[in-house]
């Protein structure tokens, strides 16, 4: 039993230590940033003040991240639910081919899509717009979302729908009234995974936007230059890193049960 608790402790330390180090570094004074003591002394919020200095536009960047990740999540859920329902519940030819095609799109290296995308967006005037970040994000997450939700819908007993249809519902009504509520945990998990993926997206956001007021938080963080004369931006970056990560940590803390349960893909089994 003791061995098991030791194992658990080791795992927790392994997972949290680097994050803890980020936190500690962010709480040091700029001049002590190279200290290696396990806790900050003296404690200082200098780096946080610096991260939120008006010139950095960090607050605006956080808002942008919420807009991009939020809209991406909403649209992906809508599109993926429709597609997954069709793939799981509607009989049509080429069904497996369509699913395979959708999954296959996630195999092409994202980096190499960048150049054609940049050219396309330059030509249609999408540079420095939200949609230039949102649509590629959707493309990146949709395959996983469709795959995940398809697995979910498949596991629901056909009798559910049949019963609803006997009660006079159309297939669409049956979907909304019966299937969707039962599938809620799966939809929820997909939402969280989508949100995290969109929140963390970096390369596209870095490339299609260069107006300061449209940049997302990870991009702004990577471009911090330090605010004062003697500031190595490490502390500021670590502080911003902590802030960017915290919404996700809160999500994970609140919904860890849901995330795990959702991934079991078997709520009604």
């Amino acid at each position, binding site marked *: 039993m003791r061995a098991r608790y030791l194992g658990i402790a080791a795992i927790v330390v392994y997972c949290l230590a680097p994050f803890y180090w980020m936190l500690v570094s962010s709480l040091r004074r700029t*001049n002590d940033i*190279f200290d290696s003591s396990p806790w900050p002394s003296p404690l200082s919020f200098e780096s946080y003040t610096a991260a939120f200095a008006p*010139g950095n536009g960090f607050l605006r960047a956080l808002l942008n991240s919420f807009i991009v990740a939020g809209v991406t999540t909403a649209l992906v859920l809508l599109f993926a639910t429709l597609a997954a329902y069709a793939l799981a519940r509607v009989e049509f030819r080429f069904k497996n081919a369509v699913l395979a095609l959708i999954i296959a799109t996630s195999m092409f290296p994202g980096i190499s899509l960048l150049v054609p995308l*940049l*050219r396309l*967006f*330059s*030509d249609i005037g999408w*540079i*420095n717009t939200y949609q230039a970040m949102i649509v590629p994000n959707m493309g990146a997450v949709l395959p996983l979302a469709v795959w995940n939700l398809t697995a979910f819908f498949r596991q629901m007993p056909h009798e559910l729908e049949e019963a609803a249809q006997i009660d006079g519902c159309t297939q669409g009504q049956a979907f909304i009234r019966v299937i969707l509520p039962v599938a809620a945990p799966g939809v929820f998990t997909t939402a969280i995974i989508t949100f995290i993926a969109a929140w963390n997206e970096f390369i596209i956001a870095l*490339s*299609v936007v*260069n*107006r*300061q007021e449209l940049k997302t938080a990870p991009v702004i963080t*990577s*471009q911090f*230059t*330090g605010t*004062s*004369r*003697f500031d*190595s*931006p490490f502390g500021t970056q670590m502080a911003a890193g902590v802030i960017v990560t915290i919404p996700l940590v809160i999500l994970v803390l609140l919904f860890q049960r849901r995330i795990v349960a959702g991934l079991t893909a078997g709520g009604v089994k």
Partner: protein
Amino acid sequence: MGKHGLVVRISAAASALVLGVSGCGSESANPDSPSPPALAGVGPITLVTGKDFSGNLQHQLDEWNGQHPDQPVQLIELPENADAQRQQMVQNAQTRSDAYTVLNLDVVWTAEFAANQWVVQLPEAEFPLGSLVPATVDTARYFKRLYAVPMNSDGGLLYYRKDLLDAAGLTAPKTWSEMSADCAKVLPANPGVSCYAGQFEKYEGLTVNFAEAVHSAGGSVVGEDGKPTVNTEAARRGLSFLVDGVRTGEIPQKARTFKEEESRRAFQAGELLFQRQWPYQYAKAQATDGSSAVAGKFGVATLPGLSGPGVSSLGGHNLAVSAFAKNKRSGLELIKFLTGEQQQRANLEKTSQAPSWASLYDEPALVARFPYLTELKKSILGAKRRPAVVKYQEVSVAIQEAAYGAMSGTTGVDQALATLQGKLDALTR
């Protein structure tokens, strides 16, 4: 790029000159220089620059904004790393974004940005080019046309621990062998201090340091005729200075992870006896707020060389106007403002950056305040440019590959240089 980039034009003249050695001489009114198109557009603009080490740039822009409320300028700072800065500016051009108006270009980027028409040609008559350090104006020209105006110059200096040398009765070394000898005398009594470091991470700074070593040994990277000359005895001696330094431990191993800021931290922490660095470090290392352990204990000199004083790589930045900006006229006016004598003087006084305005280096009051100005002027006047080629990035990466491999001990000096010569031949063919 974009639409016209997609047009496939099969050109018969594919073998045209790739090496565009720009401007020859500093004559400002060049008779055969075609006049540039007039620049129009007045209104809000942006100034895009690498990390403003000094913190003074915003003050200068505030002053501009006070005088020009109808055309305010917003400062956009890019990361410290020069390669990352260039990437952002290239991307701005490739996406034809109007987010950037005035670009603060590293001197080595002029050829690439001009040849790709990412920046516009500037009217020479509007700038007091004759008052600027001639070598810096050369870096702003491409094919005899002016594409940028020097904002500040830069030359490498040898920072040394005056306290330690004085204690041993030594003065700043003029040659590499003197430097080694000094280290042999001083270091045994000072554990934790290493002999020498520059910027040796695999990035643009390594190209600068490699070129300095080769030039300081009497060689060159690219000859007068534009042909690469790295497979020579002089280049071998130059690279050997760096390689032997690492092998014997005179250059500490961790210097291979140094960019400007890492090496500055090492010097300020008192870990180095000698260091090659830009002038910006002077003010920071003199700081008495506890961030520098060497304040008041160091001096600067020109770089040492093989058999006499060494040769610095010419650094610095030029201001150019993005071809995709809306308010180009305002951009041009901002360049005039920042490169004028008044702002150049104010900037030197507030920071320790090398001005492009020539007369400032000799003003007694300024020299008294910044004792390194005399050394810096020598360094800049004697400095050699890095190759001025359109494919500069590829040239620079090839150089980094050779120098990094040799300094890590994975390739021999001879082999590294032979390979480099082959690559540069191909790139400048």
